[in-house]
């Protein structure tokens, strides 16, 4: 769990609490990402993400290589934990079945 995973930023928005958030695509899995620590990043950039926080920008080639390595080392399991949506966080009583996210 100590490794950061590269993803491509596909959305940037400020949430209701003024936090700069985004969504990043990790090899097909899309997850929410907090962008407060990387104010410089823009749509389409690749970012190194650790537990939902972008920590730095990386180039596309670096992102692809790192992602492939983590996949080979089976270090991408944390991406399978679904994001929490406030409207339906009750389903988290049982996190075991995969939830199709909108």
């Amino acid at each position: 769990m100590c490794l950061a995973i590269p993803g491509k930023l596909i959305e940037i928005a400020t949430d209701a609490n003024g936090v700069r958030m985004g969504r990043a695509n990790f090899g097909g899995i899309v997850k929410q990402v907090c962008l407060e620590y990387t104010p410089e990043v823009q749509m389409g950039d690749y970012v190194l993400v650790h537990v939902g926080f972008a920590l730095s920008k990386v180039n596309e080639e670096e992102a692809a290589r790192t992602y492939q390595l983590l996949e080979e080392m089976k270090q991408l399991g944390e991406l399978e934990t679904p994001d929490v949506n406030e409207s339906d966080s009750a389903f988290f009583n049982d996190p075991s079945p995969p939830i199709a996210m909108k």
Partner: protein
Amino acid sequence: MKYLDEYRDEALATKIVHEIQRATTKPWVLMEVCGGQTHSIVKYGIDRLLPNEIELVHGPGCPVCVTSLEMIDKAHAIAQRPDVIFCSFGDMLRVPGSQDDLLILKSRGADVRVVYSPIDCLKIARTNPNKKIVFFAIGFETTAPANAMSVWQAQKQAIKNFSILVSHVLVPPSIASILQSPLNRVQGFLGPGHVCTVMGYREYEPIAERFRVPIVITGFEPIDILEGVLMAVRQLEAGTYQVENQYPRVVQRAGNRIAQDLVNQVFEVCDRKWRGVGSIPKSGYKLRYEFREHDAERIFETKEIDTQEPEICISGLVLKGVKKPHDCPAFGKQCTPEHPLGATMVSAEGACAAYYAYGRHLEKEQADAAAV
């Protein structure tokens, strides 16, 4: 060199291995600090590509492994309270405390939830105003910005039913502690790439200077690790002891200042107990007093916890680089990833679990059988 063909750039890997061979004239012991590097080394057999003179020992860099038994027992005590929703990274669910693990507690009715990010806990807190939401905030410096932001936002948004149980650990004091040990064998370090993405590597410079050890901040790919080894060996052979950066495509000397600023606003450095190692001065983070309303250790008074570790386990010596997993009589026998006895087997990034995952316990059995 049966593993080399698995590398993405076989020619480059071969070239670096040859350069390491040429550079090496004496035996040297290097430690990779990060559990991700350990995993990569064992998976790709990097230690077996190196000349016999170069020994890689595996460091303490797995936060799941080194979270103290006291803290895990404390987490279990809090998780069993009926007014609590206990949130954790998935890696912690199967880590055994003195009695149970979080998965067992969940099966008995405790509300234990796996979250991807600590920030998700704020949403759970808002939708469950009558419950106390506690997040098990473990990790090295890489995870600290995420945990700091969750508390910072909880304070800002007046989410009073959210707290974190902090068990943060820091890399530089653990390196210093290893070097100060009378048993120390480590002569050079491969520093942790992603920790330094956040923290930079300035704080490693006084350690390199004081203990006269080269520290090479290194990535995770096999090529990165081979390069890190080459840079460290060249320094050792030349008698220099500097901090070098093998991983400049990701790590800058200053790190991520914005993240460091928030971490320093929310956390302060404290002494921390490491599983298998014991207490290391100034080796962890705790919440600053201003954030006490979000400090689970203050909110939930847990009674004195008497923990017991199996006597046979040598994980403390493995974490310090003094022993290897196969030096342990329990490795692969009484102690497996399904039934871990100690720190280095409880998570996939621990040295013992990595050795087990890639079949090195079977090699030990064969060697033992051959010796009989």
